[in-house]
């Protein structure tokens, strides 16, 4: 059973949308993180179920769907080993203007570190000074939200 469970296809997608959001009046979601659920969860007897990442035993490289943002397409790939995110990198980074470069050079490295750190700290959620909606796209919380969407 375990062997079968470990072959259950899991898709983890973290798609980061980098765009500005200034008012409190918009109500639509602006950051859609993750395009498919991690389902069904592979069965791992006794494994903790609360880690901010795929269940133990999941291995592989998972690539998020490209997300069109007003700065261009952005796509993130993560590598999962033994249920832990071991690295994350951006596959497509828009480089159309100096503004794009500035935004991405700030946002993407932060995301990469955060994804890995969130996993190693086994956290479910993050408390911090209130995010702006722009800040959310770069935040640890958005990476965690994406894994479980």
């Amino acid at each position, binding site marked *: *059973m375990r062997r079968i*469970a470990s072959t259950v296809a899991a898709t983890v997608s973290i798609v980061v949308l980098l765009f500005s*959001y200034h*008012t*409190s*009046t*918009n*109500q*639509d*979601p*602006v*950051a*859609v*993180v*993750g395009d498919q*659920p991690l*389902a*069904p*969860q592979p*069965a*791992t*007897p*006794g*494994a*903790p*179920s*609360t880690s901010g990442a795929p*269940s133990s035993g999941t291995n592989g490289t998972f690539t998020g769907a490209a997300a069109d943002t007003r700065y261009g397409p952005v796509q993130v790939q993560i590598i999962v080993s033994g249920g832990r995110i071991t690295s994350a990198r951006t596959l497509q980074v828009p480089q159309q203007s100096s503004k794009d470069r500035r935004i991405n050079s700030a946002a993407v490295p*932060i995301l990469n*570190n*955060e994804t890995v*750190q*969130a996993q190693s*700290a*086994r*956290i*479910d*959620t*993050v*408390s*911090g*000074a*209130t*995010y*702006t*909606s722009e*800040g*959310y796209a770069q*935040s*640890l*919380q*958005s990476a*965690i*939200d994406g*894994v*479980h*969407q």
Partner: protein
Amino acid sequence: MTGFEVTAERRSWVRQIMGMPISVHLRGAGVRSDPVVPQVVAEVFEQLRAVDRLFSTYRSDSQVSRIRRGELTPDHWHPWVHEVVGLCEQARRRTDGYFDAWLPTGFDPSGLVKGWAVERAAALLAELNGCDSCLNAGGDIVTSVCSPNSPAWRVGIEDPRDRTRILAVQEIRTGAVATSGSAARGAHIIDPHTGDRPDELLAVTVTGPTLLWADIYATAGFAHGGDVVSWLRARAPDYRALGVGP
């Protein structure tokens, strides 16, 4: 089939409401299959949008904006506005005036409305059978577990000096965590006694039974500065503070 122990499923939703990201996380066997789950989550987000329509200072047609312009007398206030105004008065008293919604620029209950609204919305999630829930509104959190066997929610407390790092991990089952500070939105908190922008601390995190009061105490504690741990212990023994200095 025996020996096939399925780990609790988990599912998340994110919406942007009140100018901040709001994430719902649910854990439990039915979170992906129970048709009631998405309905309740939608209700949570809808309730928060209704609060925003009434209280946002960014919306010129909100009741709070109309009160600020002197256009709305108390007999026309929505019952929620009456409730919030009463809580603002209570908060000012309980924090020695460090939390004050009556600013020189006019009545602004935003600092209280968020915790109040998120806690009310989270109560809907807590009623879902067989589900643990966690509602995170821009860094302020309400959690609930449905069974003594449920694991605690592990809340990472962000390092305000480096927001990519976690300073501490707080395990919480049913309760709230709120953080106030200058890391995300700059120096937006004012000491009501002096009009200055406090800079003794970078962030204050408060943990306790309700988000309404955890958030009020975090904001008031940030404005107070100094030894917020003792300051809060003397006022609210059920709540615990963590102050982070520069």
